[in-house]
């Protein structure tokens, strides 16, 4: 078996287009995961059981079921009850919901890491609950979980090939489409793998910088 360099080179433009689509879905999905994850983390601390329990159940349910199943559900089942979304919106929401369940745990750990004395000091100054959260607790909790949140950005990006099942033309879809015509899967998969690697490293780089900075601050 020989490696056809020309075929590999020819695969780059369509694969880059697939990568752009994957990054678009990943970016939207990640924003959803960051925002919704924080909301889940806060709701799970609610003093109201009827808020805390359903959110807790939802998070555990999402964490315990495969992303692929969730994507199928959103793409094939929701339209039957009248909720019709584009493939891209479905993909971004699917990734976002799935990873929100994980980021909520990261936020939870960050919030739990804020010393109890900080809550007590806020109370001793009669700060409102909202102000305690937004000015005291979250500004301390979020920076310490940035590295962990960054790692989920990489994981989320690496899950984008699963979007192929809901017709999103991301990298793996391009590999299948082009490969079904020229059967040069070795070159296609190799280039696709390299694109994933380079992109994941580019996402990881700022995460590592933040990690180092945080470690220095802790020292």
């Amino acid at each position, binding site marked *: 078996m020989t490696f056809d360099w020309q075929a590999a080179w020819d695969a780059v433009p369509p694969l880059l287009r697939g990568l752009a689509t994957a990054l678009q879905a990943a970016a939207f999905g990640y924003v959803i995961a960051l925002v919704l994850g924080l909301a889940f983390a806060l709701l799970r601390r609610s003093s109201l059981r009827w808020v805390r329990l359903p959110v807790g159940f939802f998070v555990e349910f999402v964490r315990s079921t495969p992303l692929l199943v969730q994507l199928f559900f959103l793409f094939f089942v929701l339209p039957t009850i009248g909720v019709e979304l584009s493939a891209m919106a479905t993909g971004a929401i699917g990734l976002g919901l799935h990873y929100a369940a994980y980021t909520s745990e990261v936020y939870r750990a960050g919030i739990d890491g804020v010393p109890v004395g900080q809550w007590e000091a806020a109370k*001793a100054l009669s700060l409102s609950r909202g102000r305690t959260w937004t000015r005291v607790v979250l500004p301390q909790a979020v920076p310490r979980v940035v590295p962990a949140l960054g790692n989920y950005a990489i994981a989320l990006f690496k899950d984008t090939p699963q979007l192929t099942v809901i017709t999103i033309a991301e990298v793996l879809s391009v590999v299948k489409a082009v490969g079904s015509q020229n059967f040069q899967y070795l070159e296609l998969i190799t280039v696709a793998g390299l694109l994933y690697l380079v992109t994941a490293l580019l996402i990881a780089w700022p995460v590592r910088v933040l990690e180092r900075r945080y470690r220095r601050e802790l020292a």
Partner: protein
Amino acid sequence: MTAELITFDRVGKRFADAVVLDDLSFGVRAGERVTLIGPSGSGKTTILRMLMTLTRPDSGTITLAGEPLFHERRGDTLVPAGERHLRAMRRHTTMVFQQYNLFPNMRVLRNVTEAPVHVLGLPAEEAEERARELLDVVGLAGKLDAYPSQLSGGQQQRVAIARALAMRPDVLLLDEVTSALDPELAAEVLDVLRDVARTFDVTMLCVTHAMKFARDVSDRVLMFNEGRIIESASPDELFDAPKQERTRQFLRSVIDES
């Protein structure tokens, strides 16, 4: 005689099997400076934490400024207080903690202005001016822009004192404020508190092992043992001629330690 600002009426508190406060009753008059002494676990800090609404009593009633602290009136009956009542009651008191508990994400000036602006509703300029004055009183006028992590423990505690005073409380609660500091830094903090006691019209409840400080600033010293007050007297009486053997024993151990 001045009316009592704080009243504990048969207050009880247990943590698991340990009785921390045992049917405790006492009062503190407005403007009085009261020091609480006694061995660890005798309930002193629990009293401060209750007044700050950080710990609820199991039984009994605490009254602050004529209002029940953990109960609110509904018609003729008293019901357990909701968060709104507790928040309103908290405005009477503020607390300085052993571990300072400054907000590490805020500079010194903002630590002191945050609550006056957002709780008392003071205009930002007025709160800043007042914060600068208070930080000057505690000797930290030059550290307005520092973060707490850039300050020594003693300096952090002095900021915490300024932050507490900025709330213009009726009652200032001081919970072993020098216990985490080495003697030199502790002395700085105690000097500041002597100034505060002299110049501010505030009722003070202070838990401390610094007996000289207690003698200097207190109107009354309460000796605690196993959740009860076993002796209550002026500092001169209590330190020079304690009536209870347990008090004598405790004072000896504190003197040996220092």
